[in-house]
């Protein structure tokens, strides 16, 4: 393998990996904060891409602003979905409702949300693929290796979002409350904090991350209504391999799966995905809690 090919595959791996990381950080924030295993996460990602298409391609706003709008719109859609579906559902739960029942019912409700968003998008936008003109089509040449500038920007933006998320979760009162609610909502209620709004915020923040992931990747691939279905299972896989409840685990898992997919496709073709799933099963045999998750310790 030439150095040029190696670097190109590495850049591809980091691009895919960053998208998974954003997706899974969102999944994890929602899962731990609201106890919802969000099957609709892929559709939120898909909607993020459509919002970007709308603002960037149709209304010709600049890319950065369109991306911010993708995140913001999805935060709003997430908050409304939570209030309309999950908040109503949670009123049926009492202290004696078992945790497994809560998890199952919430996950099923998210499957419902997935179908609503999927079919809604089909109705509005139709089945056709939408292409987005890359805002940065340049190819740069580093030591005779040709690399797409857009891919580097995607990696950079994802890193920037991760840093912002870290600052939000560890340096602001809001983030500290989100982390506290993920651990024990009742203890937080007893400090005079209205946890209902914290749950809404958790779902909105997780949805915003999915929207940003969809928006960032949109110029690289074409936007289709089915793009959410393709990414959700791989995202669950990253969540498991990295470990639930660990940001470092999510990042490690995202990068690992990105590398395996990128290099796997080059040398094995389509069977690479099967190979990734098998490898993850092997990892989980030895570390059932994932690489760095809460359950791993």
């Amino acid at each position, binding site marked *: 393998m030439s150095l040029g090919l190696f670097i190109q595959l590495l850049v591809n791996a980091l691009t895919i990996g960053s998208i998974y990381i954003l997706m899974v950080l969102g999944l994890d924030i929602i899962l731990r904060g609201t106890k919802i295993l969000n099957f609709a996460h892929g559709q939120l990602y898909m909607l993020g891409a459509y919002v970007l298409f709308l603002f960037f391609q149709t209304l010709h706003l600049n890319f950065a602003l369109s991306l911010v709008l993708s995140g913001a719109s999805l935060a709003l859609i997430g908050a409304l979905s939570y209030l309309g579906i999950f908040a109503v559902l949670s009123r049926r739960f009492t*202290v004696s409702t078992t945790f497994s029942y809560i998890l199952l019912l919430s996950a099923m409700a998210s499957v419902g949300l997935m179908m609503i968003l999927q079919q809604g998008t089909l109705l509005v936008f139709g089945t056709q693929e939408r292409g987005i003109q890359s805002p940065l089509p340049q190819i740069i040449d580093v030591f005779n290796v040709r690399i797409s500038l857009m891919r580097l920007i995607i990696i950079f933006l994802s890193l920037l979002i991760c840093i912002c998320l870290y600052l939000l979760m560890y340096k602001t009162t809001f983030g*500290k409350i989100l982390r506290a609610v993920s651990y024990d909502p009742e*203890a*937080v209620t*007893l*400090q005079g904090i209205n946890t209902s709004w914290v749950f809404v915020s958790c779902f909105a923040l997780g949805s915003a991350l999915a929207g940003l992931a969809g928006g960032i990747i949109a110029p690289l691939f074409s936007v289709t209504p089915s793009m959410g279905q393709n990414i959700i299972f791989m995202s669950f896989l990253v969540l498991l391999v990295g470990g639930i409840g660990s940001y470092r685990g999510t990042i490690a898992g995202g990068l690992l799966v990105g590398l395996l997919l990128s290099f796997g496709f080059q040398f094995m073709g389509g069977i690479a995905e099967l190979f990734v799933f098998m490898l993850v099963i092997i990892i989980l045999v030895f570390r059932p809690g994932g690489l760095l998750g809460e359950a791993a310790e």
Partner: protein
Amino acid sequence: MFLEVKDLIVHYGKAEVIKGLSLKVEEKEIVTIIGANGAGKTTTLRTISGLKTPSRGEVWFCGGKISGLKAHKIVRLGISHVPEGRKILAPLSVMENLEIGAYLRKDKKEAVAGFKNIFDHFPILNERRKQIAGSLSGGEQQMLAIARALLNQPKLIMMDEPSTGLSPLVVEQMGLIITDINSRGISIVLVEQNARMALNLAQRAYVLEAGKCVLEGEASAMANDQRVKSAYLGG
């Protein structure tokens, strides 16, 4: 009346766990609720703090009805609940736990003064403020839970089994902390398995059995009552 619980009935599912309980707490008083496991002590506290909704009966605090209000609103009225098992936020740092306790103080300066006050009373928490709360010893975790409750600026603190899992020396220290908090004018409702400690600290006591109050009165008199002695004080 400061705090009054009237004819309370509480269910968990179909099981009636509190069967018509009435009790009163005066301002600046320490009242203890003692009783065996499953007598309904914890449920009583959870109902007062709004974590559990009563099926019937009412709770009044400072002249207003509070039963039916959400738990976070009841804290704002001045009742803090240090729950069973402490419920500290183990993955967060000690300081973050305190910050969440001070959430209701919108004025930043006031919050800083609150932390300083806490650290004066619990210097160990200052030493450990950057540590993860889950790494504290049992006694330190209990202090953190009490400190966090104090930051809510309560008029009444309800403590559920503060002595559980602590060594006798630390239990004694906990007794001093409770007396000290009370001397600042804060009323205390103390639920305890350790009836001896509770009756020493409290002015008045209620004895719960199977969701009903079977005995109430002066704590000192209760400590000498033959029935209480044989049932809760080991002879």
